[in-house]
Each structure stands twice: as structure tokens, then as C-alpha cells.
């Protein structure tokens, strides 16, 4: 039963920590979030060289074929430093879904350039009405004269403005879920790009009779199960990001409590604030424990349940921790000038994407009923 990183995982993770420490002071991050396309191509290349993008992929594509713990370690360090490079949407979501498909040709073509850092892809799965459930979609695909025609709308597609290709989920006429590779510049694609509250880049995408060849389909059969599984595994990666982020936020807040004086003493001396800090500590450890607990169930029938629990707790304890970190900082916590607000905002966004607490709870209820 794994409850901490193995020494090999830790070693890899430490290399990422060093990368983050070297590049991601808050001021640089703040600048990066505001300007240009929200990430640095130069950093992306360095991450490729560190081997980050090869972690989840099979050796036949040039990958390192290492278990999820490695990617979690990376995410933890990214969370600690609020790294903006879109590793999560590109690698943990889109990349791993691509790898889960059975389209060998596409995999051969795309994975090596993903690993090399030349290609960025984005997963377009969420819709306005899906409310977290990746299997609820109005987007449709139908075969028409040897081609596939896609219609629909996808929301909050993280990394879409940075990606050259999208993986789009759609239902075919039989109700089966399909995942289709669509070029960002394909005819009929309309992208509304924006900066998100957590400093990332995302798009809402509209597909009007977008045509792709039959070979653009990632799964020959129904992709529903793979889609759910890849997203659940990504939630584990997000859990690790949350842990790193919360650890850092606790450190920042603890430091502030001991430095900031009011009524003649460090505010850490106030019992009510001490107890708040204790509750924040508990919130953080709850997520950490659920994360390791979920990792232990990867590959078992219990995995969906434990992933849902982890994500649901991020929506509660994560949000609580962010709110309280701001509260304990007082006015200064309400500004963009201190990193605490940026941590808070990332925790806020985490509950909104890929199904919030209530969706995960409704899933847990369904899983139990089905058992």
C-alpha cells in the first residue's frame, strides 16, 4: 500500500521541483498569466527534455512507460509553484486518452511529437449541459460519404488556444461515444479564446459540420469507458496538484501568521486563528490521504469510487483552504499582488472543471446503488 512517493518517483519529482523553483517566482508567473499565450515555449521544451512528456507513454513510442505516481509527482510540484504550462490538459487528459485509443496510426504519428514537446493537443469533452458528466453530450458525429461530420459545442477546453489539434468527444447515431482528432484550423471550427480565472488559457469551441476522415477516430468501438477512466486517472493527477498547491499555501499562510502583527503580537498567537490553521491542516491531509487511497485502487473496480471521492473533497476541503488562506491574510489576500490569491483561484477553478463536488457525490450515490 503506497502512501508516499517511491525513492525513484521522489528523485524525478525533485528534478521538477528544481525546475519550478528556478523559473516560477510569483512575479514571473503573474506576468506569464497575463501576457501572450499564457505559457513559455522555452519552458515547454525544457520539460520535454526533463522527460515529463514521456512519462505515461509506451516505450514503442519513445515514452518512459512509468506509472501514474510519476505524473502525480510532477503535478504536485506544478501545484506548489502554480505552473501555467498546460501539462494537465495536454498530457494527463488528451495525451493519455490518445494512448488509450486503438488507432495505431494516429498514435504513431502524434505521440512521439507530444513526447518531444512539438505537439500540443487539448481534450474537448465538457459541455454546458454536461455538468461534469463526460458521457452527457449534445455533440454529435455522423458518417457521411466516408467522412465524419461533427456538430456541437464544447466549453472550457483548457489549452485549446495553445493546441494545434483537439480531441473532441461526440456521440454517433448509435449513441456510442467517439473521440475525434480535429485540427484547430479545420473548416467549421469557431473558437472563443479566453483567459481563465486561474491564469490558464481555454476556449469555447463550436463545431459546425466539421468534417474529418474516418481515420481521425481514436477508438474503433465505444470510447465511453476509456474516457471515464482517463478522466478519473487525471483526477488523481489533479489531486496531486491540489496537494502540492495546498502544502505551499499552508506554508505561505503559516509564515504570514507568524510575521504579521496586530494588537501588538503576531497573529499566530490568537487561538481562533490557530484553530483555523489546524482545520486547514486537516483539510489538506484529508485530500492527501484520499489521493493515496485512490492511487491504491487504480485498475480495480473501486477506482471510480475513490477518484470521485478525491475530486469531491477537493471541492470542499480545497475550496475551504483557499478561502481561509485569503481570510487569514486579510485585505492583502484580496489582491493580485500576493500569490495567495492565485492559489485560491486555482483551487476555485478545480471544483468547476471535470465535475464539481455535487456531481461527484451524485456519482457516488449511483455507484452504490449499482453495487
Amino acid at each position: 500500500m503506497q502512501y508516499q512517493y517511491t525513492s525513484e518517483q521522489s528523485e524525478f519529482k525533485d528534478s521538477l521541483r528544481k525546475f519550478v523553483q528556478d523559473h516560477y517566482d510569483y512575479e514571473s508567473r503573474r506576468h506569464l498569466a497575463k501576457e501572450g499565450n499564457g505559457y513559455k515555449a522555452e519552458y515547454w521544451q525544457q520539460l520535454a527534455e526533463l522527460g515529463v512528456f514521456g512519462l505515461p507513454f509506451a516505450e514503442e513510442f519513445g515514452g518512459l512507460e512509468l506509472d501514474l505516481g510519476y505524473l502525480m509527482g510532477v503535478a504536485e510540484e506544478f501545484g506548489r509553484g502554480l505552473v501555467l504550462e498546460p501539462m494537465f490538459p495536454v498530457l494527463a487528459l488528451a495525451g493519455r486518452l490518445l494512448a488509450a485509443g486503438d488507432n495505431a496510426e494516429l498514435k504513431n504519428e502524434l505521440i512521439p511529437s507530444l513526447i518531444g514537446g512539438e505537439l500540443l493537443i487539448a481534450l474537448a469533452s465538457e459541455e454546458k449541459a454536461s455538468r461534469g458528466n463526460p458521457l452527457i453530450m449534445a455533440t454529435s458525429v455522423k458518417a457521411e460519404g466516408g467522412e465524419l461530420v461533427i456538430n456541437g459545442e464544447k466549453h472550457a477546453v483548457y489549452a485549446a488556444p495553445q493546441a494545434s489539434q483537439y480531441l473532441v468527444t461526440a456521440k454517433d447515431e448509435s449513441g456510442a461515444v467517439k473521440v475525434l482528432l480535429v485540427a484547430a484550423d479545420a473548416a467549421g471550427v469557431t473558437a472563443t479564446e479566453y483567459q481563465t480565472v486561474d491564469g490558464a488559457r481555454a476556449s469555447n469551441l463550436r463545431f459546425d459540420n466539421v468534417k474529418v476522415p474516418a481515420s481521425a477516430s481514436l477508438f474503433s468501438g465505444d470510447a465511453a469507458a476509456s474516457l471515464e477512466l482517463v478522466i478519473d486517472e487525471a483526477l488523481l493527477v489533479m489531486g496531486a496538484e491540489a496537494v502540492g498547491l495546498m502544502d505551499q499555501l499552508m506554508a505561505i499562510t503559516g509564515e504570514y501568521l507568524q510575521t504579521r502583527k496586530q494588537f501588538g503580537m503576531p497573529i499566530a498567537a490568537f487561538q481562533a486563528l490557530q484553530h483555523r490553521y489546524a482545520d486547514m491542516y486537516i483539510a489538506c491531509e484529508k485530500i492527501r490521504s484520499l489521493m493515496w487511497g485512490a492511487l491504491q485502487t487504480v485498475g480495480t473496480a473501486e477506482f471510480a469510487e475513490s477518484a470521485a471521492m478525491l475530486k469531491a473533497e477537493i471541492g470542499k476541503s480545497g475550496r475551504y483552504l483557499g478561502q481561509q488562506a485569503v481570510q487569514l491574510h486579510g485585505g492583502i489576500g484580496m489582491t493580485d499582488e500576493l500569490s495567495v490569491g492565485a492559489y485560491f483561484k486555482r483551487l476555485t477553478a478545480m471544483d468547476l472543471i471535470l465535475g464539481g463536488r455535487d456531481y461527484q457525490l451524485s456519482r457516488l450515490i449511483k455507484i452504490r446503488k449499482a453495487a
Partner: protein
Amino acid sequence: MSTTDQSVDLESFRQEVRAFLETAPTPEILEAGRKTTSVFAPFKETMAWQKILNDKGWVAPSWPQEYGGTGWNIQQRYIFTQECNRRGVPPLLPQNIQMVGPAVLGFGTDEQKAEYLPKMLSGEDFWCQGYSEPGAGSDLASLKCRAESDGDDYILNGSKTWTTYGHHANKMFALVRTSTEGKPQQGITFLLLDMGLPGMEVRPIIGLDGEPEQCEVFFTDVRVPKRNRIGEENQGWTVAKYVLEFERGGSTFGTFLVPAMEQLHAVCDTPDASGNRLSDDPILSYKLAELDIDIRAVEHNEKRVNANLKHGENPGPMASLLKIMGTEVMQRFSELQLEVAGLAGLPLQNDALVVGSNVAPIGEESALLAMPYYLNTRAASIYAGSNEVQRSLLAKAALGA
């Protein structure tokens, strides 16, 4: 015994207010009301609305009638705020009427009253507050910004922070240190000054929503005439306390929350393209129902305090209670509103939030405010005496200790 003034027909008063509000605000003012993402509404349109209210004579209900007050009792004032919030006009910025006004009313000389009050009411002047300093937030007694006597002037050195809309203001009221003798809250003086005096520098602070709402203000040998002082030298603490108590009991969170919650329900009850309503989700309805109760409790708490308060009486510990409950229910509302917005809460849309920008929102109009409102509302438990300070005050009062 209820102290409701039975001689006033509240229902016909409500109708009168409603009739006025139906026609008085311009479309820009109403747009500003819809695009209010914190307690501080968009500046320009809100000041335009203040002018309209001033022309009507309704701008300062809590002031004495001789200086421009309306003569309404506390229930009428609550009704007025209720109707304003129902209509969706932006709330007036509190600095002129609720913050500096009472200081001048209570401690100003006749000359000062004549000079300042009319422009406070009309909005020709906009005042910002110079109280907090880096290092002195809820703990005002420890403030350090120095005013040294130099003939008929004070020379100011130091800085102020959390000066809301300081970049819009042409006037400032400030607490400054004129003495370091005695207890820390002695030796503080209440001063009025013009913005933009030589030696003053205003630096807007970018907030969580990416917009500047607060400012820092720096003073380097800024010269302010002593005749701008309100009250005696070293008696600023007394003036500031008077101001704080002036509006106590005037808690109106309920007037905002009730219509805001109705709107949120309406969003949840609106079927989407497939005919599904968010309110069909049992978990969401459960949370909405819980919030409905909390909002009802806020509303009746406020009305009860108003109804049972004898004229001029201070609500005591209930003031802290109303602040804690009002702000925390408001925060809970903002959370639920964000959950309802869902993915549509993610895009930063500061352009679309500018009144008159005509930038279409990404996603539903109803979701446009959800995120900035959620973020900004975190301040509600920090400002005006943090909720931690309020809980200590409430406990001490309740324990009689």
C-alpha cells in the same frame, strides 16, 4: 412593545418609492446595477444615480432632515433599500453619505458643514477613506501616518491603504497621528484633504478579479490646512467611533439577498434546450433550500433589530451579529451562484463587465458576474471589522464580560 411608527402607512410609502424607481434610473444606471460585482458599484453611473436621488431629496435617509435627510423612520429606510435592490439600481457608494458625512454632521463647524455637505449629497465631491495602513488593518489604534504641526498647517508623511476608489476620488478623509503620547488611540486626528495635493501619490491595487478597487496613497510632506480638521486635535478616535455607530442597525444585507436569491432560483428553474432544469437536481435544490432559510433569517434579523430598536438606540451586540450573518450568508450565496454558473464561471470577462462596453458575455449573462462576485465577496468577512473581531465583540457583549 414594537416601536414601529404606526402613523406611517408603509405600504403606500412602498408604492411611492416603487413608482419613482420605475422611471428614474437611466438604462446605463440599470446596467451598472447589473454589473455590480462587489459592494462597490461602477463609479460613473453610480454617481449619476446619486445625483438623481439628490435631486429627489432621497440621497441621505439617515441624515437629520435639516441637512438633507428624508425624515423616514427605520422601517421606511429598510423598505427604500429593499425597493432599490429589487429594481436593481446600483447601491450608492457609502463613503460620502455613510462615512464622512456623519463626521462632519457630528463634529464639523457651521462653516465646514456649509462647505462640504451639499457636495457630498450631490456627488459633486467623491470622498475616499484614509484609515487603514500597511500594518494597521483591523487595529486602527496602531496607525502611524504622521501629521506634524507647522503653523496653520499639518505636514503629512506616511501612507494609507485599502482606500476604496481612491483613484476616483477628489477628496479624502483620513485619520492621522498627531501625537505619540498616552494610549495609542489618543493622538489621532480626523482630517479632510484634497486628492492630488503636492506630495500625494495614488497607486491602485489590482484585486483578485483583476480590477483596481482599492488604492494605496503615499504622503511625502503633504501640507493640509488645520482648518480642515474635524473635531479637536487628538480626538479623531472619538469622531471615527461616532461615525461607526451612526449607521449601526442599518444592516440591509437582506434587501440585497432576497431579490438576488430570487434571480438565482429563476436561473435554476429555466429549462435548457433539452427541457432540463438545474433545480431538478435534488442536491442543488437541497442546497438552495438551505440557503433560502439562511437568507430568510438574515432578513428577519435585520427587520427585528429595526423594529425593536428604540429611537436613537444602538443595537449593541446585534450589530456584530448582523455583520457576521449578513456577510457569511452573502458568501454562501456567492458560492452557490458560482456552482450554478459552472464552467461559465471560468472565463475572465472584465471587458464585458464595463458598463456600456457592449461586449457580449461568454456564456449566459447570468453567469457573467458569478466569478468576480464570488472572489470580491471574500472581502466581506475582512472589511469593516473582520468577522474574527466581530465574533470577539459579540461574545464579550453576550457574556457581559
